[in-house]
């Protein structure tokens, strides 16, 4: 199956949940090597993510993955969101992501993890922790 499947291109050209929320927890991450960036604004109430908006610039994969992930995150409990793993992002994308593009696909997860950490006033985690399958519990 093609990396640039219709679903991916649809989310890239018509991204969901974009914008910004004032008085939200906000955090920005960047893939320095390619310049892709994402900013997530989160509203958490009683341990549940009740709203999320995002904005960013970059390749189709990084932007579509964020759009797809944003649809899943709204309504999710914080512990469930914190437990998200790279495999779950890959299955959302539904296309094979090769070793050249995994950072594009996982920038959304990395930004989300560090927005959640910002919500708890914790310092951001590294890419290694985001990508690793045995991330120590936050």
């Amino acid at each position, binding site marked *: 199956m093609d990396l*640039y499947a219709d679903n991916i291109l649809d989310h890239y050209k018509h991204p969901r949940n974009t914008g910004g929320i004032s008085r939200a927890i906000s955090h920005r991450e960047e893939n320095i090597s390619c310049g892709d960036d994402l900013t997530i604004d989160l509203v958490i109430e009683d341990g549940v993510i009740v709203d999320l908006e995002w904005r960013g610039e970059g390749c189709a994969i990084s932007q579509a993955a964020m759009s797809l992930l944003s649809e899943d995150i709204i309504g999710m409990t914080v512990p469930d969101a914190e437990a998200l793993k790279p495999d779950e992002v890959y299955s959302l994308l539904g296309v094979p992501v090769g070793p050249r*593009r995994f950072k594009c696909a996982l920038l959304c997860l990395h930004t989300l993890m560090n927005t959640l950490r910002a919500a708890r006033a914790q310092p951001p985690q590294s890419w290694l922790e985001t990508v690793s399958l045995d991330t120590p519990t936050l």
Partner: protein
Amino acid sequence: MTYDVSSIRRQFPILQKKIGNNPLCYLDSAATSQKPQCVIDAVVDFYMTKNANVNRGVHALSEEATVAHDAARETVRKFIGAKHAYEIIFTKNATEAINLVARSFGDTLKSGDRIALSILEHHSNMVPWMQLADTRGIGLDWLPMTDDGYIDVEATDVILKKGATKLVAISGLSNVLGTLQPIEKIIDIAHKNGALVLIDASQLAAHEVIDVQKLDCDFLAFSAHKTYGPTGIGVLFGKAEILKKIPPFLGGGDMIQTVTTQGFTPAELPRKFEAGTVAAADAAGLAAALNWMEAAGMKAIKQHEASLITHALSSLQKINGLQILGPTDPKKRIGCISFSIEGIHPHDLTDVIGKEGVCLRAGHHCTQPLHALLQIPASTRLSVAAYNTVEDIDWCILSLQKAISLLRK
């Protein structure tokens, strides 16, 4: 005599490869060139018939290996017009060659001395000097670029006239803009102001005849893998009187005359700078590559590449929203064309066309300061070599157009 690109292509086995159902359309030779059969054979032949450790032992095989290694050094000497074979130091690549100069020549500098670099350098000709600046209190001056992609000669003159510059480290040919730099003028200005000059010839060596004596550069570096040779070996040329004065770089076997518990005496040139077992098979491959280029004809290759660049430039300029980085006059470009397309990320573009067999480079091409100056995060680069054809360019343009219509919002 007409240039027979079909016969050139037959010598490169990888060009038979298919990506999916499409033939390989390799337009990324500025990153690394493909290798002709004779280079592959030279590496294999070394291992099959000559393999022994060079410069060690006196048995028959060691002698044969050493003779082959010395012959490779002589081939490089002739290729760049150096006076002595011992002015040719084999390194891992151009990056290591530049690091050698930064460390060894850098050791002779004092706090307050300055190094001048241009803004369009590859990271490999920036970071070693930044490391030197950090550790030894050396100042860095950035030579500005003119709007059309050349190092500004007048500004260079102003900076060097201050008299604190000990070395100017510049690329001979930009790996992004394809502009041939005014290195003769800069070498002249540098020497008048008491500075040495290092030329990063990584791109230059694949496209232009180099004569280090005529240029009068003090150091020159290039990698074999960009000149149709193997990976893992590069060249540093240095003027003998300078190489003799600066301290060794890496320490180890073969770079010494004597070692006692009290210390060591370095070996004579070139072994002073070649610590440890050398990449002898790769040196044989490099020599085969340089001989191959000369047999194919440097001038003929250059003319062929220029016609491809002219064709590619005019085709690319017809694409809506595509912006060429650097000069749009084909006479001012050698080897490569970088461009950006509004609203489309280079990684998406090259990933999509990659499936059609088209290999272009996407990213910042190890020139982040240049991309910052141009105010773009990344670009796409098309680069040509002796084996490319007009059909390669046309297939690439067609694939680009398809990818753009897929990706454009």
